[in-house]
């Protein structure tokens, strides 16, 4: 039996790094000095990942305010808009305002950050991108208007270019698509997603993980499981726990990621629960199970993130040692 662990999305940005970034933005600190502080943080972060026995990590996303901020960095034709609640969390991002046709911004810093992370860690590094549907949900579209399929296609092409340009610096692509299970998303937007995923991942030879979180809806799960990726992610915390029985029946022969650590609550998980979830998935025929946090780690304090990953490590050891 194989059991792997992962950190998905972000790691909480410590206040001292926030201060460094703020000073850098306002020109109160030299870039070199800021980079030194960030590298110091990243060394600690990758050491934490190594000590936690993680198989997959991201670059921590420390320099990005949120996933929308990261996304706007490699896009032309967009601006940052008003603050908006990130799904139903008390966490806010700036809306992506699409003012012109989406194009690739070749002068983006995301690739530089991935390259730096690649040099600093031997763990399997994931490039984090938004899925096309969630991108559209987090955006105010003033350009494509009713022609959302063109928006999907253009976005997929831009992400494809980014992933090709950055190909030497990551092992895995982590696609965040929580909107697929959100309320109010029309079915006709979900069904053609496979096509745009194909465009997004075309000619890229890398392992791909798609992540959903917060909600889980069975009326859309077939479309989700039809996306052309290797690993399908599910948030199995909070109210989704009761849906596990039904979910197990759908993951036979699939590779899955289970967000077992609740990134929205400080309460620590029971190792016995994590163990039960993983063993049940295998008993029901899952081909491979990866476990980790349910969503971005910004939503809980850093000290709790550390405790939760320590617990995950113990859980993994207990599962492997019977």
């Amino acid at each position, binding site marked *: 039996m194989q059991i792997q662990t992962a950190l998905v999305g972000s790691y909480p940005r410590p206040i001292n790094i926030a201060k460094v970034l703020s000073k850098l933005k306002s020109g109160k600190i030299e870039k070199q000095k800021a980079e030194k502080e960030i590298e110091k943080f990243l060394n600690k972060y990758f050491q934490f990942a190594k000590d936690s026995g993680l198989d997959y990590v991201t670059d921590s996303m420390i320099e990005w*305010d949120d996933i929308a901020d990261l996304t706007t960095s490699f896009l032309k034709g967009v601006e940052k808009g008003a603050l908006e*609640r990130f799904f139903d969390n008390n*966490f806010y991002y700036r809306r992506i305002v699409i003012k012109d046709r989406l194009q690739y911004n070749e002068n983006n810093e995301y690739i530089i950050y991935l390259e730096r992370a690649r040099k600093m860690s031997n763990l399997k590094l994931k490039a984090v991108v938004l899925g096309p549907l969630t991108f559209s949900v987090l955006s105010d579209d003033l350009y494509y208007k009713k022609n959302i399929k063109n928006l999907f296609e253009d976005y997929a092409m831009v992400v494809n270019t980014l992933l090709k340009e950055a190909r030497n610096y990551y092992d895995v692509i982590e696609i965040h698509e929580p909107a697929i299970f959100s309320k109010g998303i029309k079915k006709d937007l979900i069904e053609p997603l496979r096509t745009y995923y194909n465009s997004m991942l075309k000619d890229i030879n890398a392992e791909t993980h798609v992540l959903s979180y917060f909600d889980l809806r069975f009326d859309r799960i077939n479309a989700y499981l039809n996306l052309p990726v290797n690993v399908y992610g599910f948030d199995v915390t909070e109210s989704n726990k009761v849906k596990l029985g039904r979910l197990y029946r759908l993951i036979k022969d699939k590779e899955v990621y289970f967000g077992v650590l609740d990134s929205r609550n*400080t*309460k620590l998980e029971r190792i016995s629960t994590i163990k039960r979830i993983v063993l049940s998935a295998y008993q029901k025929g899952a081909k491979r199970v990866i476990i980790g946090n349910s969503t971005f780690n910004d*939503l*809980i304090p850093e*000290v709790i993130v550390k405790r939760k990953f320590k617990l995950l490590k113990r859980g993994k050891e207990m599962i492997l040692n019977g």
Partner: protein
Amino acid sequence: MDELPILPTTVIGSYPRPKWLREAIRLHKAGRISDDELKEAFDDAVVTVIRDHQVAGVDVPSDGEIRRDEMVEFFAERLGGFRFYGFVRVWGDHYYRKPSVVSKITYKSPMLLDEFNFAKSVSYTPYLKVTITGPYTIAEWSYNEYYKTKQDLAYDLAKALNQEMKKLVEAGAKIIQVDEPAIHTRKEDVEWVVDVVNESIKGINVKVVMHVCYGEYSYLEPYLDKLNVDQINLALKNYDYKPVKLFKKWDREIGVGVIDVHNKRIEDPEEVAKDLRMLLEYFKPENVWVNPDCGLKLLPRKIAFQKLVNMVKGTLMVREELKKKGYTTISLKPLVNR
């Protein structure tokens, strides 16, 4: 009888901390000034805030919530049942200490009494507003490690906050505002949240206001009639007043947000007056209070002050027009028997 002029002007609560107060807080954290010296700085800041409100001509001021770092954190620090693990980001570089509920919520001792008594002692009017974060917002913006459901947690919070509100009434508070900015976060919760808010204000027979801002107001609309508050006040300017139609059937008082607190542009008095005239097509004049969309805390003080000045000037223009039609004052008497 307690009366206010027609279209009373008020604030939502928070006001920018003067720079010297921020410096005093920093020095206190560094151990360089004593608790007493910090208290003196807070008291002085309250005097300053109330003076700003007075100069601007606000009818119902607040103490600017000047002693509160954050609206949930403040109460979680003072109620039993909470624990803090550290800071979390809300957006960009803005953090707060999001509390965790780790045991049953208990009311320990008065939380707002001292700040209310001090503000009252330096206020230019007896019609001072006291704000208190509502039970659902505290529950929603905390981690729940203890209660089986958020509903159970919110009910216990409501009972604790009710004790606090009773103490404020005993101390002479005439206007209490329950802040529930999270009330419309989850559609499925709103029905029971209304009961929770009602539980928190049970027996509070002074003017009770509920503040709601930024979010999906339509979730709240079907349950408005069940809310036992005298007034709701809302962020409206930021939405260019689009949600107003949702509240057309609301026949109690409404505080209309005519100042965008997320924008440094200062609305001019004519703009405020024009907006108010439009709003009076939806609501009876005797039901309308005038306020900014939300607390002014995040604005530079100079801008916050000028926004209040212009809000009052714009209101005075419309007030004069209403006086000619026979509207002069409104009563502070509660509209609902709680």
